[in-house]
């Protein structure tokens, strides 16, 4: 397989959501000594961009989206040890702490966003569902994350998104983090009202928002 074929196959594996193929192609790249940053940027990432486009055009639905994100993660899992070994810093999107706020066990939407962010090159710390507010801050402090994403599916628990911002203020940490909110009852208006830094209505929009917030393209 020449380089162009390799890159094209990587692109296709991501678009098709083919985890096994995406990983095998990563192994092939490592074996043939290809420029790994190039295969990421010109092979896999364009596939992921294509998936985003297909979603926005209404061609792709959640199962396709999540399969492509999983394929991307599988590819990166193969490339990561090799990159580490060669001391190459793959272009990372930044560190993100994410979770569903306390009192709320809904995690489907949060999982999607976490998966898409991870596929998009972010270092994601997923704390799960029903997460105590203090834990978001502890984790963000511990790993040096710049962004905290809060999910809530209930109008009764969405107030915890607001409480987290208050908690950051109390600790004098508000300016250190960008706080993004999502979930069925959240909205741009709600984000403004509680002094959050942003709101996204779905997983694709969330990745774009996080990218903007972390100073990416």
């Amino acid at each position, binding site marked *: 397989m020449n380089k162009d074929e390799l890159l094209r196959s990587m692109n296709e594996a991501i678009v098709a959501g083919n985890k096994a193929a995406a990983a095998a192609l990563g192994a092939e790249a490592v074996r043939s000594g290809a420029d790994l940053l190039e295969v990421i940027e010109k092979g896999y990432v364009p596939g992921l961009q294509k998936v985003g486009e297909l979603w926005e055009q209404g061609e792709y639905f959640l199962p396709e989206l999540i399969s492509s994100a999983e394929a991307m993660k599988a590819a990166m899992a193969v490339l990561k040890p090799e990159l580490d070994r060669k001391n190459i810093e793959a272009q990372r999107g930044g560190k993100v702490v994410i979770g569903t706020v306390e009192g709320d066990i809904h995690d*489907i939407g949060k999982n999607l966003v976490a998966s898409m962010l991870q596929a998009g090159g972010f270092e994601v710390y997923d704390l799960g569902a029903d997460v105590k507010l203090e834990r978001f801050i502890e984790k963000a402090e511990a790993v040096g994350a710049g962004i905290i994403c809060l999910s809530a599916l*209930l109008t009764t628990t969405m107030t915890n998104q607001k409480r987290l911002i208050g908690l950051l203020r109390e600790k004098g940490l508000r300016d250190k983090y960008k706080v993004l909110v999502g979930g*069925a009852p959240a909205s741009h208006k709600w984000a403004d009202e509680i002094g959050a830094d942003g709101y996204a209505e779905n997983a694709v929009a969330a990745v774009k928002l996080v990218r903007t917030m972390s100073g990416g393209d």
Partner: protein
Amino acid sequence: MIETKRPKMELLSGTFVEMLVDEGLTLLETQGIMVENAEALRLLGDAGAVVDLAAQRARLGRRMVEGCLASTPSSITLFDRSGEKAFAVGGDEVHFDPGSAAVTLLDHDTQEERKAMTADLVDFYKLVETLEHIHFQSTGLISSDVPAAVSDGYRLYLGLCLSSKPFVTGTFRVEGFRPMKDFLVAVRGGERELRLKPLAIFDACPSPPLKWSNLTAQSLLDAARAGIPSELISMGLTGATSPVTIAGTLVQHVAENLSGLTICQVAAKGAPVIFGGSPASFDMRKGTTPMGAVETMMIDSAYAQIGKFLKLPTHAYMGLSDAKVNDPQAGFETAMGAVLGALSGINVISGPGMLDFESSQSLEKLVIDDGICAMVYRLLAGIAQRDDPIALGLFEAFAPDMQFLSLPHTRQWYRKEHILAGLVDRDPYEAWVTAGRTSIVDKAHADVRRRLGKYEASPLADPVRKEMDKIMAAYARSQGVDRLPVSDF
């Protein structure tokens, strides 16, 4: 005379039903369920389940589950607050109750959803009390002006003060059960009396797939011991929290419901249980849980058929809509669900009034939906043979200018054969224009005002009310709540 046929639909063949039940039982035996409640795990273990306490997992053998099925009553009789009016929950009886626990109310004046307040809940109870085709009340709104620590109990307290109908309700916190049971006992005048004449159904929702949380498992144990019917609300979301195929979701549904039933039976043999649910065809674009999707209704109808095969009372969330206002979508989704649910013979159909994925209630929609329920009951009554011969007698005096309006036969039967239109528009065009082109929503709003105006309280007996007040005050105090919204009911 011909016996009137009750119209009925079934989506599954008998063989398919048996396969689905068989797989559900196998799933319980091989994979089991997660139970985050130590007492429930212990009871299941004592009754023969293979329990892994550390993993909070219980595998339920087929014989054990079948034994529990055998001890569960096939029918429940609920009684209204007075204890006089009985409602059979079993067979093909159909009772509607408003969709429960909405967090917002659709405000008619602004056409916006807003947080529900206690005053709204009071109006809601009063209105439902006047709607004759909605047999049961539900604790339909979560008032935002009540502290979360007592909101489950407070809404039942208000409801029992304001309404005589049986209730569909449930706990939000483990601590909520005790005062809620105490209210029911106070109304009935004793624990034994409540057991003999159940006044409320408690909903308990497993977390899909195959898990009972501490709260919901505790609710099953507590309700079973008090003789309060538990309504099991399995809610797989196709392709998200349950298999994407409808049949696959049904297998999970069977397993979740039978595991809930088993928990009830090991707590109190013979405890009343309703085979219910609120599953949905997960929207793969929006990530939402559409209750108005036809596939959701198909899952509901099918699991109800399975519930009947298992000789259990049944429940479903149908007759509701995902629309945000009372638009055509609200009407057709509600009517489709109500009709399909009733034709499936589902005993408790929760839905009227509800919008926006079970999150919003509308008073206007409640009265519109009461009209839908009226039509549904007419449909269920079927086509009767009233005369023998059926019509030949009427034609004995046949002449070209014959008409039927003035016949005594017409006068005798028209109110029995046909129901009045209610709020729907049946005006000729010109009359409709002259009357101001009024929409059904505007008519419904006027009807809400009229009904609230004519609502007459049938107050609780003074000692009962005093006892209720005492229980409520003690519950509030125990939760550190010193003030509750005052209402002038």
